[in-house]
């Protein structure tokens, strides 16, 4: 539980047009409707199911199932490694997949991780981003959650690169797919609860956290120089355009930034 505040930010993540937060969200009314739908579906269906699953499944079993589902979906990472020209990483990921599928008993045990073959995060959305495809509008998809237009091919791509898709026996793949969804939801419980506890506007919190984290992944988990220089406000964060100000006295606008020197700079001691 400790450190959850940190972890949750990476697990997630006004009005129409370009809102105060600076994120271009032209589909916000529709997105908010789907966000509400997903939240309610989660509250009334997935939360009880997930709680029951956690109650009857010991933690080590859930850990092994997570390893297994990660492994069967790992070809998605490998294919995208090579689509991005990351040959060395791709070779390492093939090694990881082979080791875990054999020594790791179909992936139930992360033997490769112990051998130093680290897991990487790649998908079709990251590949398209690195190819220079524009992000497109932010989307909230029913039953899926936060996404972007550029990232939507990832959904189909992840299905076709999943080993389970090629098993060809519905009696095996359907139950496994259901367990996979429940297991994924159970693993996200802390993040979902964090948003419920702490966000004052859960939609904006999730949207911005998601987009920022995707941006971080696109840059290979590095804070690029530009983003470092603008950490105070991330790139693309414009000065908000206020609507009807409801504070009294009326808004005087806009100073994009407090006078930092006046606030933060210590007096220079006399020589």
């Amino acid at each position, binding site marked *: *539980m*400790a*450190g*959850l*505040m*940190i*972890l949750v*930010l*990476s697990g997630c*993540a*006004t*009005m129409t047009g370009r*809102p*105060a*937060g*600076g*994120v271009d969200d032209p589909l916000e009314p529709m997105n908010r409707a789907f966000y509400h739908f997903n939240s309610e579906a989660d509250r009334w269906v997935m939360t009880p199911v997930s709680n029951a699953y956690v109650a009857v499944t010991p933690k080590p079993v859930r850990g092994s199932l997570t390893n297994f589902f990660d492994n069967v979906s790992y070809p998605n990472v490998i294919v995208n490694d090579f689509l991005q020209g990351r040959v060395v990483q791709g070779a390492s990921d093939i090694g990881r997949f082979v080791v875990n599928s054999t020594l790791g008993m179909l992936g139930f045990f992360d033997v490769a991780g112990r051998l130093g073959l680290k897991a990487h995060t790649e998908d079709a959305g990251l590949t398209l981003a690195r190819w220079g495809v524009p992000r497109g509008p932010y989307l909230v998809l029913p039953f899926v959650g936060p996404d972007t237009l550029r990232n939507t091919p990832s959904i189909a791509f992840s299905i076709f690169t999943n080993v389970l898709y090629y098993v060809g026996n519905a009696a095996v793949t359907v139950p496994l797919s259901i367990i996979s969804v429940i297991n994924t939801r159970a693993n996200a419980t802390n993040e979902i609860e964090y948003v419920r*506890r*702490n966000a*004052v*506007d859960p939609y*904006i*919190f999730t949207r*911005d*956290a998601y987009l*920022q*984290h995707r941006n*971080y*992944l696109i*840059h290979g*988990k590095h*804070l690029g120089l530009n983003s*470092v*220089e603008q*950490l*105070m*406000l*991330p790139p693309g*964060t414009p*000065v*908000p355009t*206020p609507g009807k*100000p*409801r*504070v*009294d*006295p009326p*808004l*005087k*606008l*806009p*100073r*994009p*930034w*407090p006078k*930092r020197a006046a*606030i*933060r*700079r*210590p007096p220079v001691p006399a020589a």
Partner: protein
Amino acid sequence: MEWSRKAGWTVVLAGMLAMVSIGIAVAQTQAAPAVTVITKFQGTLLSVMKNAKTLGFPGRYRELTPAVRKSHNLAFIAEVTLGPYWTGLTAAQRAQFQKTFTRLTIATYAAEFDGYAAGQAFHVTGSRVLGNGDVIVATELVSAKGRQARLDYLLAPSHGNWQIVNIVANGVSDLALKRAQYTAIMRAQGFPVLLKKLRAKVARLMALHKAA
């Protein structure tokens, strides 16, 4: 002739290397006080995590209050989270907001850092001085299983001390998230509603952990 050209290049190269080394050393020296602020704050955080159960929520809140106040420039962060709406607030409203924001920040730390897993520790992994003199301190939270999260702190000088003005967790800026939410509420519903929501969050965190 050949020898002297070679020697010349060697001297130039050595000079460049020396300048780079000196530059790195100067940057490290400049960043050192900021790094100390982070290691001290994370030390307190770790101590609170280790004693979380015995302290309970009120104890964690009490222990963290001086550490957070000292290491974070909460007045500045509060101001930035409201963007341009800050200038439209009265002095009384600003004071109300800063007080509530401070309580919410400390309560969130006390609520979320409520336990310790074997092997958990914070490590400073690097630091760099930015063009404007501010400092980034890169850290990570590790557990027995490996790295749990990357935490980048942005610090700026304030009244002779270095203080945190933003925290970026796995690439997600805490300040940007708060600013996006708060300015949206300010625009749509106004200051009283925002203040009410933040106070409700504080009350809820307190109530949730009352028994803890």
